[in-house]
């Protein structure tokens, strides 16, 4: 068989394996056995472990955005819109995407390298020998961890970003605090909140599946581990950005946002 044909077959097989892992990992949410201890461990690693870095990044993103808008809007005399634009941008777009990217960088790489070293050290084979399905034991807890923790981190990150925006708007740009909060309250409507809340679930699921798949398909020693960790982060980043666009388009359609 030609090398090219084998590579195409391998690529299709990889894609099939990825879909299988994603589906089976999700199925583990409703099918026994449940590994609740592993879920809690994953929530601690992905959620609590990412808390401070998300806090820090969100704060500075909010402040930077507010600063940029202050400069532009002050010149045009539209300073009162800072809160509204900061709110909409953070809640609908920047908050979920930035949090997901930071999460993918930290948790995605960690998951891929952990599972990759388990594969190389025959720990995954050992699980199978003991009759334990690695998808249930390793993938499902990581999917659950991401499905719970990424939305939670996003909400926290959004809040901190808005507070950072408030600090700049009020103390640097000298806008009225009550105008800022009134604007924020105005953008906290059903459509915006739902738009910003759905995305982290999808991003979390994608990040967990991609990282687990890359980790579990590791081969070739230390170089292979490096490759799968890098691929996990890069693929997660790309998929988050692509999924964000698709979701935004779909949500625009559902909520009837006019363009």
């Amino acid at each position, binding site marked *: 068989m030609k090398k090219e044909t*084998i590579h195409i077959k391998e690529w299709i097989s990889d894609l099939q394996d990825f879909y299988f892992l994603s589906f089976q990992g999700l199925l583990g949410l409703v099918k026994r056995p449940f590994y609740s201890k592993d879920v809690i461990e994953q929530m601690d690693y992905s959620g609590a472990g990412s808390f401070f870095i998300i806090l820090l990044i969100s704060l500075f993103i909010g402040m930077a955005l507010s600063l940029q808008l202050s400069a532009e809007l002050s010149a045009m005399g539209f300073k009162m819109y800072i809160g509204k634009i900061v709110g909409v941008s953070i809640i609908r777009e920047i908050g979920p995407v930035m949090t997901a990217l930071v999460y993918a960088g930290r948790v995605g790489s960690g998951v891929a390298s952990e599972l990759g070293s388990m594969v190389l050290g025959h*720990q995954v084979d050992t699980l*199978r020998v*003991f009759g334990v399905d690695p998808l249930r034991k390793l993938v499902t807890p990581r999917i659950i961890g991401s499905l719970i923790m990424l939305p939670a981190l996003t909400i926290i990150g959004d809040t901190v970003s808005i507070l950072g925006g408030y600090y700049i708007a009020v103390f640097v740009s000298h806008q009225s605090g009550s105008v800022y909060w009134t604007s924020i309250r105005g953008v906290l409507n059903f459509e915006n909140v739902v738009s910003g809340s759905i995305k982290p679930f999808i991003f979390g699921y994608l990040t967990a599946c991609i990282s687990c798949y890359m980790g579990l398909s590791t081969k070739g020693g230390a170089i292979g581990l490096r490759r799968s960790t890098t691929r996990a982060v890069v693929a997660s980043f790309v998929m988050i950005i692509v999924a964000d666009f698709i979701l935004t388009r779909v949500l625009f359609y559902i909520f009837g946002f006019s363009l």
Partner: protein
Amino acid sequence: MIVFDRVSFSYGIQQVLKGVSFSIPFNERVAILGGSGDGKTTLLKLIVGLLKPDSGRIVVDGEDITDKNEDELREVRTKFSIVFQEGALFDSLNVKENIAFGLREYSKMTEEEIDKKVRGLLGEVGLEHAIELMPEELSGGMLRRVAIMRSLAAFDPKMFLYDEATTGLDPVNADIICKLIVDLTQGGKGFIIVTHKVFDALRLAERFMFLKNGSILFDGNRDQLMQSSIPEIRVFLTELNPPLPASS
């Protein structure tokens, strides 16, 4: 009995096994020799269904396992006790939890019973003091001993499978592991050990197979091995009497 019937296996475009055929009774003590990348570990994984052959048939205890799924293979795997290279202990679990892993999955033992059983198994290999240690705190020899005990904890295997059980160990620890392997076969149980250490293979096994480029180059007993004129085997046998380096 394990039967391989014209089994071939590839990793992508790299063919690792080429139409390999043999049969091994459960009570036989077999050493599979060969260089790195010659398919020794692959062969062990095929026996317990961790890999599926590209072609050919694998029969274990009268059952064709070639096309069995993971659920069906559960039963087959309980017939073996497999110890992977460097032990493959779970990094995140301490020694006790590693050994108890299979017990928790397969038995309905209480915590007290599990603790008693784990201590008993560790006592057999002189590692009771290491019960709370993490795998990274263990030496190579301790890792292998814990791994062997873990593989024994949950099942009553018909045969032991060892992947490079003594590789990377100093002579003292290698000796401890070899004695343990021999002790475990006292009840008439056999084993397959894959190794590239001829010295350990000769002190443990009664039948020897030599893998080269995915084919079985040799299959015979100790005397036949020692008298073999196959160049690759002769090179391996130099481990027994290594030529002294020339003095400067």
